[in-house]
């Protein structure tokens, strides 16, 4: 049982390893989660199709690599493609349904998700695809991770800082925040609502594509990866308060930490028995449990405005 988990020999190494693993996983989840918060804050509905944007992003990166693009260029092309796809879906579907109830939009977004998922599975087939990368193991302060993990964390941090600067230091970003806090008032004051919504879709689609590509690099591509990331991403967004963009990042961190700590603690030894760990496939239980706990503690969080 012990051999299955990386546990460096130095004292305190395990704790650091758990922290490192949490940060890596949180990075993958957070970059996808912010897009859901972004669209929720302005359009007031939970977009389930967003998960598929991440999946499409992963596959688009794979196509780029197959066409001979270097990996960074492939991810950039994938982000641009999925961002445009998100705009296209808005023009074709969501923009025509601005007036209906949020529940209706949520159901429609599932229809879109089902469609996109089935198309991806039709084109690429059901079997898993692995994106080959060369990684170097890194030892740092008693923890072990790969160079790829480092790139994942650094790029997520970089893109979050970029989003923060955009939202809080530019006029366009302020306009987006104004739309989130009071759409009608912002439009009355001359902010071009529909154009800003398209920009918002591009950003959330592109971020989802980057997140999907990072997950594809870290694990592998398969059509049912949507089910694997669905619960953690929505749990992170829920913990963060749905419409709070950086709350989603915090939510991803909290969730990831809870998941990694719980599967790393030797509960058996705690009660004086043989070593016993929570099996790692129970991560999803922690995600759903976290959603339930958040709901019980702060049910009003759904109505909070953007960061």
């Amino acid at each position, binding site marked *: 049982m012990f051999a299955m988990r990386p546990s460096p020999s130095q004292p305190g190494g395990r704790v650091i390893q758990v922290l490192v693993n949490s940060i890596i996983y949180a990075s993958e989840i957070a970059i996808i989660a912010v897009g859901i918060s972004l669209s929720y804050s302005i359009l007031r*509905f*939970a977009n389930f199709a967003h998960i598929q944007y991440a999946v499409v992003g992963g596959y688009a990166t794979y196509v780029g690599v197959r066409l001979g693009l270097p990996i960074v260029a492939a991810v950039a092309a994938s982000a641009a493609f999925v961002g445009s796809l998100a705009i296209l879906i808005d023009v074709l*579907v969501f923009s*025509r*349904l601005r007036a*209906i109830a*949020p*529940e*209706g939009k*949520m*159901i*429609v977004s*599932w*229809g*879109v*998700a*089902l*469609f*996109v*998922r*089935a*198309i991806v*599975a*039709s084109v690429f*087939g*059901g079997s898993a695809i692995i994106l080959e990368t060369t990684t170097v193991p890194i030892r740092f302060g008693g923890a072990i991770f790969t160079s790829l993990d480092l790139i994942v964390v650094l790029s997520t941090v970089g893109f979050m800082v970029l989003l923060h600067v955009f939202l809080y230091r530019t006029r366009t970003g302020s306009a987006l925040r104004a739309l989130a806090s009071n759409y009608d008032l912002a439009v009355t004051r001359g902010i071009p609502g529909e154009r800003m919504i398209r920009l918002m879709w591009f950003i959330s689609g592109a971020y989802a594509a980057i997140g999907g590509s990072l997950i594809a690099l870290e694990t592998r591509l398969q059509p049912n990866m949507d*089910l694997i990331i*669905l*619960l953690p991403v*929505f*749990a992170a967004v*829920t913990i963060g308060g*749905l419409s709070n963009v950086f709350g989603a990042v915090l939510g991803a961190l909290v969730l990831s930490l809870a998941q990694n700590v719980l599967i790393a603690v030797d509960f058996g030894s705690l009660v004086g028995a043989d070593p016993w760990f929570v*099996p790692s*496939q*129970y991560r*999803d*239980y922690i*995600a*759903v449990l976290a*959603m*339930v706990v958040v*709901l*019980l503690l702060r*049910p009003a969080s*759904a*109505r909070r405005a953007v960061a």
Partner: protein
Amino acid sequence: MVDFAIYALTIIAVWAVMAISLNIQFGMTGLVNFGQILPFAIGAYAVGIATELDAPWWAGALAGLVAAPLAGLLVILPARRSSQDYWALITLGFGELFRLTMLNVPSIAGGADGVTVSRLGDRNLALGLSLALLLVAYLAAQRIGNGPLGRFLRVIREDEVLAATLGRNPMSYRSTVTAVSWMMAGAAGVLYAYVIGYIAPTSFLVTDTFIVWTAVILGGPGRNIGVVIGAAILILMSVSTRFLADWSGLPSDLVANLRLALFGLVLVLMFLFRPEGLFPETRRIRDVDGR
């Protein structure tokens, strides 16, 4: 061919019960349940577990009928004061948790391999039972929909605050609706297990919930006969996938995926162009005098 027609009708009846059950929740009350597959799976797994324990057939059926509504009340509890977004997420989450439990804990019901259940040998009996269940579910749903309960459920759907100001507790009505409709879905699951004769986690995916949703949106939310016809159309398309694959020469998983794409497209197109469904709910307009 006759055998296939009987089988198709049986499966249509089972899924039509699912559509009616979702219709009571969403169409009448406005509850967005994204985990409708959960009570269905509970019903089916109750049968599976009973089989593993060598219990008589009625014990499994009874367990499914009791466990499904109880699970519904447990799931609705945390979502009590929250908006529909969260209700959707919570039901979706619990549905997935149940599937993952069955997948990851082989000691309960065989894990990924599933359980083989003694199938109803007589095809006509299976069809008869399914149609009987459909009839019972339909009559119950009609009775709820046309009676004072249904009228109040529609008030909750249209305006929860108004419903609360009428001096009644919307939450207790929602709990009633959840219990009734989850029991229906549980019964459908029990029957499904006995008709198919095999239960595995792959039969209870999120996608299956959305087939039921597509049936309800296609048929007409709020209209029982509409959602039954919606389910019939979709399940006919599903069961004919095999023939379509043979006829077109395409691989059957590709045809299955294209079918799912079509379902997604139907859901979106209905919302865009005919949100009231093929068979819209009849508007109930009454004069104050009651004429």
